[in-house]
C-alpha cells in the first residue's frame, strides 16, 4: 500500500535555522512521534525506535533514517526512512524544501510517500492511510514546535 502525503509547515525560525534543524539527526530524530529510543550513527544517519498502533496491530518499529542533502539545491534534502518490526515493513521517501516566508520565517514544503507491507498493511488496512498521514503530520508539527521552542529559548 503506497500512501502519498504532502504539507507545508510555517516555522518561527530562519530558513538557515530550519535547514540546520532538519539536517541534524539529533534534533530531527527527536521529532519522530512516539519515540522510544534514538541512536545517532553519524551526521547523516540515525535509528529511531517508535511505538506504533494501527487498529489491532500494536508494537514497535525500528526506523533507519538517512538524511541526504540535495547536492544542487542547498535548501532541499531527502529523508529516507526504512522501518521494520511486528513482522511488517515501512519504507518512506520524503523530500523537504525550506523556503523563506514573511517576517524572516521559513516554510517547510514536504512531500512523502510511504509504502507499508506486512500485517501492518493487511490488518491495519483501512485505518492505515489516516494513521500514516496523522503520524507524518505530527512529525512535521513537532519540528515546528521544537523550532519555536528553540527560537523562544534563543530570544
Amino acid at each position: 500500500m503506497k500512501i502519498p502525503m504532502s504539507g507545508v509547515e510555517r516555522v518561527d525560525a530562519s530558513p538557515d535555522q530550519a535547514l540546520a534543524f532538519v539536517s541534524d539527526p539529533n534534533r530531527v530524530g527527536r521529532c519522530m512521534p512516539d519515540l522510544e529510543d534514538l541512536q545517532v550513527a553519524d551526521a547523516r544517519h540515525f535509528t529511531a525506535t517508535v511505538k506504533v498502533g494501527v487498529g489491532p496491530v500494536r508494537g514497535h518499529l525500528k526506523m533507519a533514517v538517512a538524511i541526504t542533502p540535495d547536492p544542487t539545491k542547498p535548501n532541499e534534502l531527502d529523508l529516507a526512512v526504512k522501518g521494520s518490526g511486528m513482522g511488517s515493513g515501512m519504507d518512506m521517501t520524503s523530500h523537504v524544501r525550506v523556503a523563506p516566508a514573511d517576517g524572516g520565517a521559513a516554510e517547510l514544503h514536504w512531500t512523502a510517500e510511504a509504502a507499508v507491507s506486512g500485517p501492518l498493511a493487511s490488518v491495519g488496512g483501512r485505518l492505515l492511510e489516516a494513521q500514516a498521514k496523522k503520524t507524518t503530520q505530527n512529525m512535521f508539527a513537532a519540528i515546528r514546535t521544537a523550532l519555536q521552542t528553540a527560537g523562544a529559548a534563543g530570544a
Partner: protein
Amino acid sequence: MAIEAPSAPVLGQALKRKEDPRFIQGQGRYLDDIRLTGMLYMSLVRSPYAHARLVKIDKQPALAVPGVLAVITGEDLAGLGLHWMPTLAGDKQMVLATGKVLFQYQEVAAVVAESRAAAYDGAAAVEVEYDALPVLVDAKHALDPGAPLLRDDREQKTNQIWHWESGDSMATAAAMAKAEVTVKQDVYFPRCHASPLETCGCIADMNKATGRLTLYVTSQAPHVYRTVLAMVAKLPEQMIRVVSPDVGGGFGVKVGVYPGYVVAVVASIVTGHPVKWVETRTEHLGSTAFARDYHMNVEIGATKQGRVQALRVHTLADHGAFDSQANPSKWPAGLFNICTGSYDFAAAFVDVDAVYTNKPPGGVSYRCSFRVTEASYLIERAMDVLAAELKMDPADLRRKNFIPPERFPYTTPLGWTYDSGNYPANFEKALGLIGYDDLRREQTERRARGELMGIGISSFTEIVGAGPSAQFDILGLKMFDSAEIRVHPTGKALARFGVRHQGQGHETTFAQIVGSELGLPAADVLVEEGDTDTAPYGLGTYGSRSTPVAGGAAALCARRIREKAKKIAAHLLECGEHDVEWADGKFRVAGAPERAVTMQDCAFAAYTNPPPGLEPGLEATYYYDPPNFTFPFGTYVAVVDIDPGTGEVKVRRFLAVDDCGVVINPMIVDGQIHGGLTEGFAIAFMQEIPYDSEGNCLASNFTEYLVPTAVETPHWETDRTTTPSPHHPIGAKGVGESPNVGSPSAFVNAVVDALSPLGVRHVDMPLTRERIWRVLREHGVVSA
C-alpha cells in the same frame, strides 16, 4: 459359533456417523491436541514484502529471548541442501528464503523455543533487512516486456510457467466462424481459500536412538508426504512414519507439503526433541494453498435456435510465486477441459497460460488443481450469457443442448468419456420441484413493479475419482487407492485405507460398503486411516476421489475376502465350492438356501477349522486402479431477491438435485451437499483474497475473509436422482465437491438474472452488497 447376520442391507442406510460421538464430545484428537514429552515449539518468521532482496538476517535478538533455543535460516538449510523442495507440480519452492522473497508471508526463518509464546516472541525479535523490489500482482501484466522477472532461479527467463491446450483449434475456429450467433464473455474466478477451522501444523519427532522419524501432520495424503519427505530429506522411507490424526477440515489445503513441515523435521533433527509447529489463521490465509485466480475468456458459437456448436476458452492462470499445485504430470491445468459441461458441442478448444506473480503459491484447495469448479462455473455462466443474447429462457437453452441419455458413454470434443448420465430427467425433476414456471410468472409480475427477482440454474457435470493410472499420477505415483481388510475370528472386521478423511464420514460409509459386501453390520467394521505404518499405500482424500477409488477398493477387497470365505463355507456346508451361492448376506447351498453359513461362521472357521490345504486366516488387500473417472451431475436452482436500495441479495430458495450414482449413506451425502453449498454460497457472495499494488494480502484474517455462519446461510432443499456408474464396483460416483462446483454459477446466474432488465450480462464474484450496489448505481437504480 453362530452369530446372527443382519437381514437388512447395510448399503443405502442413513446410519449415524460412527465418528461423531468423539467429535461432538470434544474427544477428537487433532494435531494440536498431541503433546509429546520434551516437545519444543516452532514459529516462522515471514516476509512482510511481496518481492524483496534478502539483505541480512540477525538471529541474535531472537536468541536473547528467554526460552529460545535455535534460529534456522535459509542459509542454514542450504548447508543441508534443503533450502528448496520439489512441488507436486514439478516446480520447486523455497523452504526458507535465500537471496530473495517472492510473496508476502513467505517463510524466511524459523525460531525453536521451549514454549509456544517464546517461539512467537523469538520470531518477532529476528531482525531481517530487505531491499524492496518491483512487485507483480496482476497476472494480466506478468508477460509484459517491462514486468519484473520473478523466478530468476529458472533457466527460462520469463514469468510464464507453461502453456497448455486441449481440443481442435482449427475445427473450433471453423465452427465458430460459421455460427449464426456468437457470444463472448470475460469471467474471473477470484482467488479464495477453503480456510478449514483447523489450520495446518505438524509435530516432527526424530528419535536419534532409532533413527526413525515420526511426523504427525494435518494431511489429506499421508503416504504422499512420506514419499516426498523421503525424497526431499533423503531419509530411508521405512524410517519415516507419517500419522495424520483427526483432521479438522481439509478441502485440499492439506494436500501439499508446506515449508514449515520440512523445517520442523530439520529442527527436530537439530535439537533432538519433538518440534511442534501450528499456523496462525493469518499464516494460513496468507501462505497456504489458495483456490482459483483464473482469468477466463469464453466464446460460444450457436444457431439462432439455440443449438450450441463451438466452445473456445482462453485462460490466464495466476499460480503465485511457485507452481505448487497438486497436478497430475499430464494435466497442468487439471481437468479444466471438462468445460463443455453437460452440453453436446461439436467442437471445442481450450488453452491455458500459467504465470508467476508475487502471491502465495498453491492452487490446491477447493479442488483447484483439478480446475473443475472453474470449468463448471464458466460453462454454466456462458450458457446464461448465450440465453440472454438469444432472448431465450436459460432452461429452454439447456434442454436443447443436453447430451441425450442414449448417447452415454459419451465422448466430449475435449476427450473425456462420460460414464453415465440422464440430464433431462434430473433437470426436469429439479425444475418441477422448485416450480420453475410459477417462479417465472411471479418474476414477470415483480419486474412490472420494479422489483429485482432472479432465478439461476446450474446444470453441471462433474469429473471425479482421479484417477485411472494411464492418465493420472502425482510425481509419478499412479493414482490408484487401496484397502486392507482383516476379519477377526469372532467375525468382526478391521478395514484400513490409503485415503484420509477430514469430515467425509469414511468411518461410517466404508464400514457400510465392507459390511454390505461381507454380510456384516456396519457397526462390526472398524475403519482406520491416516497412519502410514498400518494403512496400505494410497494417494489420499481430495477431488471427491475416496468413494470412486478407495470405495471401489473397499468393495473389491471385501469380495476377495468373500472368495476365500466361500471355500471355507463349502467346507462347513460339506459341499463343493461351486454349489455355494452368496445371497442375502449368507453363503447358501444352491437349491437348498436354508442350508447356510454366515461370514461370522466362516471367519471363526478360518482360524479354528480351516479346510485342508487352505491358508488359515481371513485377510485381504486390494489396490484399485479405476478404469475411468466418474461423472456426477446435478441441477441446482437459486431464487434471489435484491434490495434495490442497498444491493443486498437474499437467497429466497435454493434447491440441489444431485445425481452421484448409488448412494452409500443418504444422510452423509445430504450433509456433504449442505456443507458444499454453504461453501459455494460463501464463494459467490463473500470470499476473495485481494492484494494491493504492493502485494499486501488484504484478507488475511476472519474480519476481512468472511466465513458464513448459520445467520447468513440460506435454507437448503435437496433431492436426488440415481444413475449408477457402470464401471464402479458398487455404482457410486462421489459427491463431496459437487455442491461447491455446481452452486456458484447458480447463485451468480440468479443475481445476473435479477439484474438483466438493466442490461447486465455478467458480474464477477464475490457478489457483495457493495459490488451489487455499484452496479445498481451505474444503471441509475440508486443515486450516488
